[in-house]
């Protein structure tokens, strides 16, 4: 490299920097809130119609739902496009903001989509279709304020059913350690854990790479707290809320104590959700704190091998909590066939066959109208346990959002590495909470 070219390079660098700052407009466009609330219709015009739908691949659930829908509405063709979960989640904002977005779009989380005005508010449809008469707690995870704080505000999505967490148990191992009924309180749970450990049975299967280790943590946080509403608004990413409380500290210390006692696999941090699930299916581990979405797989080989119960309450008669979120199908602002799209959303929530399919294929528990026909799972299956557990927690008003969804970076940048550190004994419960809280504040503001 000689002097002339070096000067040329410097000049180029300086010029580009300066131009970038002064000469050009800011990237991004101001497409602020075109959530038009024009006239909505619940009846579809006659003649051949069609709409586009992009969802995450899910064991053929959506293909089945589309088939059922097209049978009921023969005039409508649904162009279904299934994409891998990870690639869809990565691209959902770009898909929603494209000029020709699908009319129904599967979302993992809102992210900034509401704030950026990319989604259609479904409020007028909820009114028109009568969703507003249903039990409203089912719409909490799919509602958001204009500022993008979830949990309340306008409705932006609905879907075929709910995910709900709880505890799977291996019936054979349960018998082996002398567990006759699922534990209902923390004390009962801990005595089972100790009994299992004493008999050489691994108490919990879990995985640190996909942070399923956060499920028992969040459950402990919920049962230790005296102000569940405050924690719940933290999970929804509400500015000004905190988890830096003595009660949360107690919960983290309890988990830390369990880790110290060897209640989790030694290599928990090297496992991802697939490997931990496979190990659990092959009989390793008494409990698996996980959700109903894995129930169909656990029931597949040998229905009746695994059961499911809600995570125990602190004391007898206390509230049971479950992390739960609706499968989120949204309608982008720029969608062209909105009425058709919402008619599909209404269909999956209300049609008996669709609701049963959501449970059988997706393991998702439908909510919908209060007087809907109940769905049925095979007696003695893990899935049946999930349905019962969901109903119980719903009645106790114990459904909460996943703490991993508190901010868009919570799961990958904060919770996963921090909980790995906690399980490896590389951080203290105090430092863990402080870091999680400060990362939270750096995103939502304090």
């Amino acid at each position: 490299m000689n002097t002339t070219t070096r000067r040329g390079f410097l000049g180029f660098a300086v010029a580009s920097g300066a131009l970038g700052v002064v000469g050009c407009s800011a990237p991004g466009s101001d497409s602020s809130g075109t959530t038009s609330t024009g006239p909505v219709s619940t009846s579809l015009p006659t003649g051949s119609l069609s709409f586009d739908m992009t969802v995450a691949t899910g064991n053929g659930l959506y293909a089945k739902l589309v088939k059922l829908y097209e049978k009921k509405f023969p005039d409508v063709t649904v162009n279904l496009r299934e994409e891998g979960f990870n690639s869809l989640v990565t691209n959902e904002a770009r898909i929603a903001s494209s000029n020709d977005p699908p009319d129904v779009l599967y979302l993992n989380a809102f992210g900034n989509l509401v704030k950026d005005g990319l989604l259609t508010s479904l409020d007028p449809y909820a009114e028109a279709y009568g969703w507003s008469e249903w039990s409203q707690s089912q719409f909490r995870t799919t509602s958001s304020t204009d500022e993008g704080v979830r949990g309340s505000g306008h409705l932006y999505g609905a879907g075929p059913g709910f995910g709900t967490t709880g505890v799977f148990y291996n019936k054979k191992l349960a018998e082996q350690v002398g567990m006759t009924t699922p534990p209902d309180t923390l004390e009962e749970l801990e005595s089972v854990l100790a009994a299992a450990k004493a008999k050489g049975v691994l108490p919990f299967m879990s995985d640190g790479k996909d942070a399923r280790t956060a499920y028992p943590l969040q459950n402990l946080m919920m049962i230790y707290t005296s102000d569940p509403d405050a924690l719940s608004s933290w999970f929804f990413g509400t500015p000004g809320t905190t988890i830096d409380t003595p009660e949360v500290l107690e919960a983290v210390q309890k988990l830390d104590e369990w880790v110290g006692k060897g209640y989790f696999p030694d290599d928990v941090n090297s496992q991802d959700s697939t490997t931990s699930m496979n190990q659990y299916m092959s009989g390793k581990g008494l409990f698996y704190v996980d959700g109903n979405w894995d129930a169909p797989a656990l029931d597949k080989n040998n229905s009746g091998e695994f059961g499911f119960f809600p995570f125990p309450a602190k004391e007898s008669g206390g509230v049971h909590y479950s992390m739960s979120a609706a499968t989120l199908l949204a309608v982008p602002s720029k969608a062209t066939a909105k009425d058709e799209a919402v008619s599909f959303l209404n269909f999956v929530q209300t049609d008996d066959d669709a609701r049963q399919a959501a449970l059988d294929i997706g393991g998702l528990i439908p909510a919908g109208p209060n007087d809907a026909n109940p769905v049925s799972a095979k007696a003695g299956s893990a899935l049946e346990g999930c349905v019962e557990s969901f109903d119980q927690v719903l009645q106790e008003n114990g459904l909460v959002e996943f703490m991993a969804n508190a901010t868009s970076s919570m799961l990958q940048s904060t919770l996963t590495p921090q909980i790995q550190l906690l399980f490896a004994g590389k951080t203290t419960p105090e430092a863990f909470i402080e870091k999680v809280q400060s990362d939270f504040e750096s995103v939502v503001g304090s």
Partner: protein
Amino acid sequence: MRASRDAASRTVLLVVLCLVTVFPLLSMLSSALQPEGTVPVGISWPTDPHWENFVLAWEAAHFWPLLISSVLIVLGVVPLSLALATFAGYGLAMLRPKGTRSWARSSSSG
């Protein structure tokens, strides 16, 4: 005598290195042949090798469409970049004077 013994030990080292290199590949093959839904434990030749896993993977991954996409990309990119590079090479050779070197270097690192 000593020299040839040294040579022999060096060759042995080389052979060991080659074995170490193929080891992970063998381990991958061994797990590819395990029955579906099991987690590979160590390296062992399965008693009942599941060769059909390859067919399943081919179908599950929609291999044909993916392969066709790759071929299309190759057919488009390779001739085009070759043509552009040839033109540029000829042009740079004509220009010759200083500057071409730095240009060539910056393009190759890009």
